[in-house]
């Protein structure tokens, strides 16, 4: 692992307890140059803690954290990283221009401020105070603050949470452009469509460990071909015994069945439950693949 030169950020055998509870349990995680990595997992899986460690705000109890070969608590390690945190705010009384100028000054080789503001049209807001921005505008400023220093690694923590559909699509396009320029991106998200749209690689976390590390396509394939949803009185144990079923469990009032052969499964299902209702069949989405990995009680909250 030490020899993996493409790894620009690593957590190696990291354990971390917060408020007496174990959050990370021997976690090993590598972010490689030029890759878009999505970190997925249910609440409490350890995503936020992992980002806290990588950005130098937390220290591991055991194990090591490296960012460009350095301890991320050192400012020099962070000079090649841009970070957009969901929980970060903006200073109300500073103008957008002042804030972007100040932030650019933290980096050794920043973009010109005018160029940073021009990306996706923030120039018209330059003179506005941050306190007067809408939520969506503030989010755009946060993205500019993350990229103003020409980072080699961009960390995006739930970047599109609470954004409308149009703003979300616009941000995805910007992120894809950054990835095409060779910027490595670490993305935490609850939105599986977002991971599917952006990521080269998906890391699924659960209970402080990585439970899957694969491309979105490979994860989908691993889950099987189709998802069958229906209303049925059959218990999950019986559903699991149907032909080709990989995973079955309740989803609201429905049962969700992930199967490698929808036709065989549905044929058996119909004969086992004459009162079967609301039957729907769809291609497995990334969501289903991850549900299969985590088990029915560990859903990723939407």
């Amino acid at each position, binding site marked *: 692992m030490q020899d993996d030169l493409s790894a620009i950020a690593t957590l190696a055998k990291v354990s971390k307890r917060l408020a007496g509870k174990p959050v990370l349990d021997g976690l090993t995680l590598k972010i490689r140059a030029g890759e878009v990595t999505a970190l997925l997992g249910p609440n409490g899986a350890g995503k936020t803690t992992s980002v806290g460690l990588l950005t130098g*705000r937390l220290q591991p109890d055991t194990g090591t954290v490296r960012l460009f070969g350095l301890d991320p608590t050192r*400012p020099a390690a962070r000079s090649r990283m841009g970070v957009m*945190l969901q929980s*970060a705010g*903006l200073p109300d009384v500073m103008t957008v221009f002042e804030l972007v100028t100040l*932030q650019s*000054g933290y*980096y050794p080789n920043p973009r010109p401020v005018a160029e940073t503001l021009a990306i996706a049209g923030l120039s018209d807001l330059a003179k506005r105070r941050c306190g007067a921005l809408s939520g969506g505008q503030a989010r755009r400023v946060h993205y500019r603050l993350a990229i103003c220093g020409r980072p080699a690694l961009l960390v995006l923590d739930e970047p599109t949470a609470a954004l409308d559909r149009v703003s979300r699509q616009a941000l995805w396009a910007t992120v894809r452009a950054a990835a095409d320029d060779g910027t490595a991106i670490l993305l935490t998200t609850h939105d599986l469509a977002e991971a599917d749209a952006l990521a080269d690689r998906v890391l699924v976390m659960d209970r402080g460990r990585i439970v899957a590390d694969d491309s979105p396509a490979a994860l989908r394939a691993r889950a099987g071909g189709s998802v069958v949803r229906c209303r049925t009185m059959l218990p999950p144990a019986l559903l699991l015994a149907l032909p080709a079923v990989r995973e079955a469990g309740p989803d609201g009032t429905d049962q969700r069945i992930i199967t490698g052969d929808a036709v065989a499964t549905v044929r058996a299902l119909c004969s086992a439950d004459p009162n079967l209702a609301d039957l729907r069949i769809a291609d497995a989405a990334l969501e289903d693949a991850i549900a299969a990995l985590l088990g029915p009680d560990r859903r990723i909250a939407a």
Partner: protein
Amino acid sequence: MTAAALPTGIWRREAVAELKRSWRLPQFLLPTVLTPAAFYALFTLAISRTPSPAVAAASLAGYGVFAAIGPALFGFGAGVAMEREQGLIELKRVSPLPADAFVAAKLVAALAATAAAIAIIYLAAILAGVRLSAGQWLLLIALHLASTLPFGLIGLGLGMRMSGKGAVAVANALFLGSAVLGGLWVPSTMLPGWMQAVGQFAPSYHLGQLARAIVGADTIGSPAVHLVVALAMTLAASGWAWTGWRRSPA
């Protein structure tokens, strides 16, 4: 991999930004600047009508320390706690800005507020007939400005540990407690015994005694001991601030 060099001027730019920010928040700045001067004018100059220059000078020594505590405790303590709740500290901490440049910028802003506050008090004192030598003025200015440091560090430790509301409440209690128990309003010799005893644990007491020594007023104990204790308390406060910074993820 070699460490990327951070740009020069990062400390200066952060300090300028912090000064601008506090200038644009007069609702926070003005009370901390004006309150100590108003107290000095009211309690020392107005109530005793024509205080002797010696009394006015001794009082000036204490009120100057008092003037440093407000910007330090409220700017750092309550300010940092509120900025933490707004996610502003987090924004700084994930950036390459060194933590010491961040703290230094806040300190510069607090020092500027202290400087404004003590300037008004000095002016009032001169008008009331206080006369000190140039050396005494310089020492007094240095001590009053330096008083910002231990209280700023105490405030930073508070701000990193408490919610905004909690930090405001504690900062208020410390602000008034340090002034009374430290003998900044009423000389320690006139306080009840238990207050004097508790006051020993307040940095304001030792800073106040040092200031009294500078203006030639009577002091309790040797100024050298007060200096050592004040420095030790500042060191302890920096430990308290540093552990608070390390412990909190934002």
